[in-house]
């Protein structure tokens, strides 16, 4: 199975990074989350209800819709905050990328650990720009708002191609497909990673390190 990979690029001002990332990540997760599964006898299951919430951005002329789940929002905000800190700390030109990867777990026999097989990866490339005055910032607010709108349309276009989605799991396998840790919604299993491009153009990759760690772990 080939993993579907999509790349979105945005140029934002420093204080817009958080909201731009949240807008795109939440838009993707809105489409990749279902209600909580409740398995019953005879293999039947029912699905809970997903609520939605409009979020106005403070630094961008944009409103996005996210799943009504404070738990999920906290997790995403934490990841975005780490990404932003990393962008600020390293001697970068303000370039980096954050990836949202949906995967399935495949049980392996002992002593091998479970395999994580990605089936969809969204990469958001960010370029942070510095603006000189308030007028430019105002223009940037509107321009970034329009750009994010285009990105949302791109996301929706990809999702509505109805390409591969993991099969609905039985009760014993639900944790291999979905993240069942949240109380109110159930997104597909996902992980968020980021890379920062430093001023020399080389990428300080956290995913590479993790890959190596995973391979060596037995």
């Amino acid at each position, binding site marked *: 199975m080939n993993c579907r990979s999509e790349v979105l690029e945005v140029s934002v001002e420093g204080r817009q990074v958080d909201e731009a990332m949240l807008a795109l990540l939440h838009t993707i997760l809105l489409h990749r989350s279902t*209600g*909580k599964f409740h398995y019953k006898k005879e293999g*039947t*299951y*029912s699905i809970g*209800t997903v609520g*939605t919430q409009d979020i106005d951005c403070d630094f961008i002329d944009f409103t996005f819709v996210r799943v009504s789940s404070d738990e999920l929002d906290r997790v995403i905000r934490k990841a975005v905050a780490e990404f932003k800190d990393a962008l600020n700390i390293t001697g970068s030109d303000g370039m980096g990328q954050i990836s949202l990867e949906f995967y399935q777990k495949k049980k392996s026999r002992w002593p091998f650990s479970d395999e994580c097989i990605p089936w969809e990866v969204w990469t958001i490339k960010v370029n942070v720009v510095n603006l000189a005055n308030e007028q430019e910032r105002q223009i940037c607010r509107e321009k970034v708002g329009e750009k994010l709108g285009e990105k*949302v349309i791109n996301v929706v276009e990809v999702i509505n191609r*109805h390409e591969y989605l993991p099969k609905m799991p039985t009760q014993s396998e639900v944790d291999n497909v979905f993240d069942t840790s949240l109380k109110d*919604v159930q997104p597909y299993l996902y992980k968020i990673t980021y890379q920062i491009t430093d001023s020399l153009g080389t990428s300080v990759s956290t995913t590479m390190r993790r890959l190596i760690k995973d391979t060596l772990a037995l």
Partner: protein
Amino acid sequence: MYVLMQAYAMMESDLSPQDKKDLDKFIKFFALKTVQVIVQARLGEKICTRSSSSPTGSDWFNLAIKDIPEVTHEAKKALAGQLPGIGRSMCVEISLKTSEGDSMELETWCLEMNEKCDKDIKVSYTVYNRLSLLLKSLLAITRVTPAYKLSRKQGHDYVILYRIYFGEVQLAGLGEGFQTVRVGIVGTPTGTITLSCAYRTNLAFMSTRQFERAAPIMGIIIDHFVERPFGNVGHMHPCNYRAPGEEEGGAFAGVEDSQEVCTTSFSTSPPSQLYTSRLSYQPPALGAAELCHPGTCTAAHPHQMVAPGKEGGVPQVPMQPCHGAQADHGHVSSCPTGDATHHIPATPPSSGEDAEALSRSSEVKSTSPSDPLDATFTRKVGAFVNKPTTQVTTAGLDLPFAAFAPRAYELEENDPMVHPPDSPATSSPLQGSLHSQASSDNGGQTQEDFVMVDFKPAFSKDDLLPMDLGTFYREFQNPPQLASLSIDVSTQSMAEDLDSLPEKLAIYEKNIDEFDAFVDTLQ
């Protein structure tokens, strides 16, 4: 035409009757929910609905989308018992109308169907889930088109209106160069459903003459307002909602839940087990609370072959609710719910609706969720009246459209925010003048529309000192003007200055050498 009909008949025969019935139901409710999402996105307010881990049976497509009764009513009227199909599109037109009477179509959302069929697709599972995904996409896209920002700013200057029509798509009113965005598509055995939006890019105003055109399909306006200052809006409906008899804020009391219980239960087990469970399911008596949870219903699809673990899980379509059929006939009945807080009157379902054996005794009602969903679905008084702020009262002020806010005005008399008995300082000059007027009346007189309250500043005790804070405040509210600022004094001194000017100039000329010497020392 004959060939098409034949092909259509063949397609129909490939679909089992139960699947066909389910598909029609899904398309119908998808159309209704689509209209709700679009209109609610143009109300001008942020929408918020709560997630619920337990299915309530009234949330179609597993999404918490509220139903505004008026919008559902208009949508059903437009559909008139038909479903969107090939050549029959359902359209929601969003337009803007200014207070001067200029109007402009902003966008048209189209729910269409084409002939491309996907015969292999499983109706009750895959189609259902893809329709759910499409609704989520619609939620996202409705916030992205230009009309969203306009709708968030609607108020005194303009309002956003909606119109639902069925039939051929009309895009001529969008002007030249309109853009189209496709929200998504879902293939079904009878055709492919497509949802798209065409939106205007040229925002120059049209003349009112262009607004008069062929008679619309829909006629009656449901008037929320006492008067309509925007003149003849004909067939359009304002994109704001205020349930009659409601108080400001609070829960979304006017919500009408879906008239049919929706599919919320799915299965990963083989059909034989389901069939057995259906036969063994003993429907309890009418009104039992357990019935309200459709998750326990196991109306099976004995014809579907499903193996566990596959993507096509068999959904549990619940017992056929009689009021679903009633809704089809345009007659809405509210069934008794287990939730007393919503005060829905218990009305028995009308007879002779469905032939299904289990429909009568095992009626699953559309329940309001026992937890009132905390929708922060705030409503406006009207498009032309801003919700009264704490600083301004409509009484006695010359506000435009003040006649539209009789309810809010009544509430304001007792609103502690407007008549704060305890505030020591005023937050606005207007409120300040109200207070000073009240205090100067010595607490004895009552103004026409105000409740007279003694001025009691916070944190002050009036028992020990002869002059308390309140008295001090009252006495020093109107201090005398400063002498230097009084006009008489200034005019007098200026006249004197002018008179003495020639003398002063003569003195300076005499001492000019001294001045020059002084300047030299500075250099």
